[in-house]
């Protein structure tokens, strides 16, 4: 790009005009890059300690697909892929992530991600599933409005527990954070345990019935924590929900099965400073989200790390314990510090992670020292969530979803999307240990979506590619690769597959042979996994 000779002068003049008092503009420090560099420093330090040889850097194609899946929850469209791959700008990777993080797909994807974290009971219960749309409406609002994470947690912890309102929400269209409480059955023990686990990474469940065998939680600690959520039920009239009345200030709880009544106390043993008319949950929210709470920011950034690498610095991510130390303690601390310093901006941390060299390593195993996922010497291949897979398949195949496909009240699994989500439900071992089942394999090989996408009559994308006069065989194959795998085929792949297509396959029909190639792409590990 040629710079006009007048440009620097104009810049200086403008600068002086719009920066009152500033003689020379300081270059704003690139905090994202600074944090990314810190990540790499700490990760590399451990490599050096252990004689680990990291995998080479991922190429543009690998980065493109990975970033789209992790930030936008789907693979890129062919046009998006071409645009990125052909862009010569040196900072295009940063620019891509910035664009994705500011886009609507981010909001959609992370509404899903947060909902699965906060409302995991929806998998097993109809009642909770009914409330999902209202809860997602609240999450979408938080994400779209860029509400800082600590404020989001405080809002959730102090949300009204009005059950009547929760169920009188037509179409569940109004934001309803109260669904969180309903999902935990409004029980203080469930709420205490869930909030400790989700926001502090502390597993206190064992201590519900007995002193924790490994940690230091005693039974009384568990119940004192639960007491913040105690509420008495006031019987309502016929047909209405019992109203929950919480204490105005001091909260207490009867430990079930005993005569003991305990007063609410924080998990670190400190007593809350009860104030008149300040609700117990408000005090708990303040304590949890306080900058002095060592777990809050750490648990949050650890969760984000696990999203992008498949394994947390503390793993499993909701078990911060002396017996389960972080793999990179200083890194965890630094991430937490920067997260808090930047106003608990989740997008900031995501941008920094995505800009790091560690995130941009290949997923191929080039040295045995890379096998341990906790040294982060290569990107671990990860399974996709049902939503990521379905949305990616829809994009890759041009599948037209039937109306009502995304009906959130589809409980009986009748829509193709719902069936797919059930078939490809999240696995409890996490995405790095993804196991494919026979039914999943059969669905991908012979199911409706694939068969429509690879049928000569029904597949619009196939017909478009096959009949496009501007494409030759090589071009057609390249387009299918870009659609499914977001990359161009390697020369030997092109050679082999072009020969197959031109020979027409078993039916001596070039389009049918093209359909076969597309089928193979859609069933490949390369398509099915995030790598």
């Amino acid at each position, binding site marked *: 790009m040629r710079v006009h000779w007048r440009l620097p002068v104009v810049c200086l003049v403008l600068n002086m005009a719009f920066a009152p008092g500033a003689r020379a503009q300081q270059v704003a420090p690139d905090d994202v890059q600074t944090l990314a560099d810190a990540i790499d420093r700490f990760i590399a330090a451990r490599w050096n300690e252990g004689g680990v040889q990291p995998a080479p850097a991922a190429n543009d194609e690998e980065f493109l697909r990975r970033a789209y899946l992790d930030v936008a929850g789907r693979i890129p469209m062919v046009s998006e892929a071409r645009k990125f791959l052909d862009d010569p700008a040196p900072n295009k990777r940063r620019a891509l992530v910035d664009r994705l993080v500011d886009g609507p797909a981010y909001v959609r994807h992370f509404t899903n991600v947060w909902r699965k974290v906060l409302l995991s009971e929806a998998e097993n219960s109809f009642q909770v599933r009914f409330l999902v749309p209202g809860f997602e409406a609240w999450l979408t609002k938080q994400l779209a409005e860029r509400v800082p994470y600590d404020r989001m947690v405080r809002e959730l912890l102090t949300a009204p527990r009005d059950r009547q309102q929760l169920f009188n929400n037509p179409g569940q269209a109004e934001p309803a954070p109260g669904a969180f409480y309903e999902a935990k059955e409004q029980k203080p023990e*469930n709420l205490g345990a869930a909030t400790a686990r989700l926001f502090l990474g502390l597993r206190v469940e064992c201590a519900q019935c007995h002193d924790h065998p490994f940690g230091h939680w005693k039974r009384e600690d568990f119940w004192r924590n639960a007491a913040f959520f105690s509420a008495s039920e006031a019987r309502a009239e016929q047909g209405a929900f019992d109203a929950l009345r919480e204490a105005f200030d001091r909260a207490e709880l009867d430990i079930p099965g005993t005569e003991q009544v305990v007063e609410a106390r924080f998990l670190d043993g400190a007593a809350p400073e009860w104030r008149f008319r300040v609700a117990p949950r408000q005090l708990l929210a303040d304590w949890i989200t306080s900058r002095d709470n060592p777990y809050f920011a750490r648990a949050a950034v650890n969760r984000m790390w696990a999203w992008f690498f498949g394994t947390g610095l503390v793993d499993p991510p909701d078990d911060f314990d002396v017996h389960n130390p972080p793999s990179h303690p200083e890194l965890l601390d630094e991430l937490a510090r920067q997260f808090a310093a930047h106003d608990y901006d989740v997008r900031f941390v995501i941008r920094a992670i995505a800009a790091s060299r560690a995130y941009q390593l290949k997923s191929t195993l080039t040295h045995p020292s890379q*096998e341990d996922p906790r040294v982060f010497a290569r990107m671990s291949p990860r399974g996709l969530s049902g939503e990521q897979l379905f949305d990616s398949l829809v994009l890759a195949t041009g599948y037209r979803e039937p109306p009502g496909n995304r009906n959130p009240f589809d409980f009986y699994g009748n829509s193709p999307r719902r069936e797919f989500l059930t078939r490809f439900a999240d696995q*409890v*071992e996490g995405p790095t240990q993804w196991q494919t089942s*026979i039914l999943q394999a059969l669905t991908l090989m*012979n199911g409706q979506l694939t068969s429509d996408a690879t049928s000569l009559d029904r597949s619009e994308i196939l017909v478009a590619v096959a009949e496009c006069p501007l494409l030759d065989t090589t071009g057609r194959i390249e387009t299918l690769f870009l659609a499914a795998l977001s990359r161009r085929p390697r020369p030997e792949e092109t050679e082999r597959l072009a020969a197959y297509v031109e020979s027409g396959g078993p039916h001596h029909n070039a389009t049918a042979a093209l359909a076969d190639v597309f089928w193979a792409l859609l069933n490949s590990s390369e398509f099915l996994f995030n790598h």
Partner: protein
Amino acid sequence: MLERFRGKLPSGVLSRRDLLRLSAAGVVGGSASGWLEGLAAQTAGHPARRRSCILLWMSGGPSQLETFDPKPDHENGGPVKAIETSVQGIRVSEYLPRLARSMDDMAIVRSMNTKEGDHTRATYMMRTGYLPQGPVHYPTLGSLLSKKLGQGDAELPNFVSIAPFKAISPGAFEAGFLGPQFAPLDVGQGQFPGGPPAPDDAARQLQVDNLGRPGDVTGEQFNARLALLSDLERGFSGGHPGGPPQSHQAAYEQAVRMMRGDARTAFQLEAEPPALRDAYGRNGFGQGCLLARRLIERGVPFVEVSLNSVAGNQFFGWDTHANNFESVKRLTEVLDPGWATLMSDLKARGLLDSTLIVWMGEFGRTPRINGNQGRDHYPAAWSSVLAGGGIRGGQVVGRTGADGMRVEERPVAVADLLATVCLSLGIDPMEQNMSNVGRPIRIVSPDAKPIRELLA
């Protein structure tokens, strides 16, 4: 499996989580099963004999008074009479004439005493042995048992679920924290009001989704596709050994084996003589029982068949809140021939001795008849039945009072029943699996008191 333990701390010390995992896998430390371990060893029978289990799942909560615990001398019993069975002293409802003749092979538990009266929670509890608890995804019975009974390299999956109606309690039908390789292969969809399909459709419904190639894909073309896929996979898995890609390839191989092999023929009910298909009953449940027999024959260790609806009933399964007597009659007209034929068929093929049949629903029904001639949910006193191999048939365990309201003798909780099931299959119910919250969880809750009188 051991690759997972590479995540050790720099100092070489195993984290607590690793220790628990190693311990659960039996690598470190001893088994924690205690006294039940001895009992398991005794009841295992000959180690070479492979055991199977069929669960007959009665969605909705079947009425015990019109089935296995009739009360003809009390007004709670309603109009239904009791009939003699092949075992002296044991009487059942007149609605079960054919089953009555097989009583020597059956053991009735009349003293089921559970506390859950809600469909979703009770279904979950009876099918997993635990109440739904926050983040833990408890596995269903079929996953737990088939994990122990199954063979790794079998052509057919180890756990098949026929016509499950999952919607009522979605978490209760899955492998939970055991992972998808222990998930059931679902065959046919459970029906909800609107009745079962027409008789000749019943067989078509009982197919594995997507087991066949789409209509417009020939065998040759399918093979060509697999060859192309194989090339792509070779390229990818070279650089990505183990992990998700490896599981992907294994699943595809198994799926293709199922598509091509004998496995497909298992689902071809047309191969059976029409007279036998008539005896089972030309309906979803009856043909489902026939399919179960075929799968057991082919070595599938765990099959469940759900009875969710019958023609003429407008509601869910056995949930007879109204018009109980006519509705249960229709249900038993499907249940009686289906189950009785299953048992006689298995017996004729010499398979009954090695096949345990479990019959139960999520709860029973109120002895007091409500205003709609119906019965409502009743977990306080109800019946379940164990039949076939591994148990001593021809007996009744427990007793309810004359009015059927309370258990008077030998109350049985869900853990007690499931522990008994495990032991009769030669499985130690106290064995642990690692859950998704890092805590090891036993197959059956440790407070279980198995029904020793039932064990063979």
